């Protein structure tokens, strides 16, 4: 437990000290949103808003989280002695979820400025956003651990990640479209439960499979 907190704290300190990647990803988020604002001028309906929002979250997540193991390259040897892989992956999962949630909130804020804010039902919308972010961040953390071992990481990250993330993404997009169109809870209950179970599957698989990619 103590090690878990230490590892999360370490990730935070690393990101805080070398501010280059963090400011890079913030700029990435801002410029993709601004580019799509220029491209989609006048075409924005609620459905387009929703799809655009999730696509930008998807690309931000894949760019932000692909770093999570690459930056450990030179340090990885120390971890073998310091922590068990199970603790390491839990720390990584928590950190990347927190990171992605902060980015998602920023994205929502920027979207509200440029495209207007169609969100009425904040509790339901944020529940769906959190569930989607759990799925995205944990799946991409696992994919990042896999592609860490390969030669061309950035391409591998995309081609391995996209087919795997489709179940989470289509559930999140269709749920949030319904929420933005003022749907009541009972109509999306089934989809929400499916999404929770997909998240649970992803996290459980990551937990079981990560140690195999780690020891080498």
């Amino acid at each position, binding site marked *: 437990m103590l090690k878990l907190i230490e590892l999360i704290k370490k990730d935070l300190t690393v990101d805080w000290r070398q501010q280059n990647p963090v400011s890079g990803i913030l700029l990435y988020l801002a410029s993709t949103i601004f580019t799509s604002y220029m491209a989609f001028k006048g075409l924005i309906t609620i459905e387009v808003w929703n799809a655009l929002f999730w696509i930008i979250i998807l690309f931000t997540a894949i760019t932000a989280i692909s770093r999570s193991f690459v930056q450990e390259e030179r340090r990885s040897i120390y971890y073998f002695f310091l922590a068990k892989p199970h603790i390491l992956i839990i720390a990584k999962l928590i950190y990347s979820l927190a990171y992605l949630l902060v980015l998602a909130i920023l994205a929502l804020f920027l979207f509200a400025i440029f495209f207007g804010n169609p969100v009425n039902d904040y509790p339901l919308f944020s529940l769906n956003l959190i569930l989607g972010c759990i799925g995205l961040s944990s*799946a991409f953390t696992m994919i990042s651990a896999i592609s860490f071992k390969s030669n061309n990481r950035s391409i591998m990250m995309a081609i*391995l990640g996209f087919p795997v993330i489709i179940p989470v993404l289509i559930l999140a997009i269709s749920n949030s479209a319904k929420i933005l169109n003022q749907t009541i809870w009972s109509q999306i209950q089934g989809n929400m439960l*499916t999404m929770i179970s997909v998240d649970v599957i992803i996290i459980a698989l990551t937990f079981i*499979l990560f140690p195999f*990619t780690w020891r080498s």
Partner: protein
Amino acid sequence: MAYLLKKNWWKWLCIALLVYTIIGGLLFPVPRLPILNETIRVLHFHVPMWFGMILVFTGSVIYGIKYLRSDNALFDVYSSQLANIGIAFGVLGILTGMVWANYTWGEPWSNDPKQNASAVSLLIYLAYFVLRNSIKDEQQRNRVSAVYNIFAYSLMIPLLFILPRMSDSLHPGNGGNPAFNVYDLDSNLRMVFYPAVIGWTLLGYWIASINIRLSLTQENLENAS
């Protein structure tokens, strides 16, 4: 797989079933349905491709798990060669399906959930082979690709259940296609269809077993020289 590599009887069974499928599929009486007409005979050559693909991928994942438990390189050969055949089945399934859809639904690709799910599963396993080629160290390659195989397959299965709920399917069984549902009850079709599934799946395992022998022999030759 080890059993299948040693024994031969199932190959004779496979030949018999496929000969029966081709003769029966082309000549036996079929129900006369609107729109479908004679094209319903594709059923015996298209649908078994999907059954075969899923069964072969399942075999591949089982050997992936066995590899992770034992670190035995033999299991990795089994797993990757089965995945190879699964891709071949998937491509054939998509092609036969597109030809059939062109005549019955009017267009080769109509954003049908089952079509999309099959495209996704092909993407997953094509990515699996790109991943294998991009890692040099052999042991690491085997382990990482087994991990991806298990991870992606276990997410593909929920996808097969989620996608149909998102939109209506033109495929029989969901979305309300009364004309198609009739063949579920037709005993003439069933008499050929189930043997066809077994026959095509066995053919897949047969091709895989030849590929496995080939790659094991190549490995031995490399080690010997």
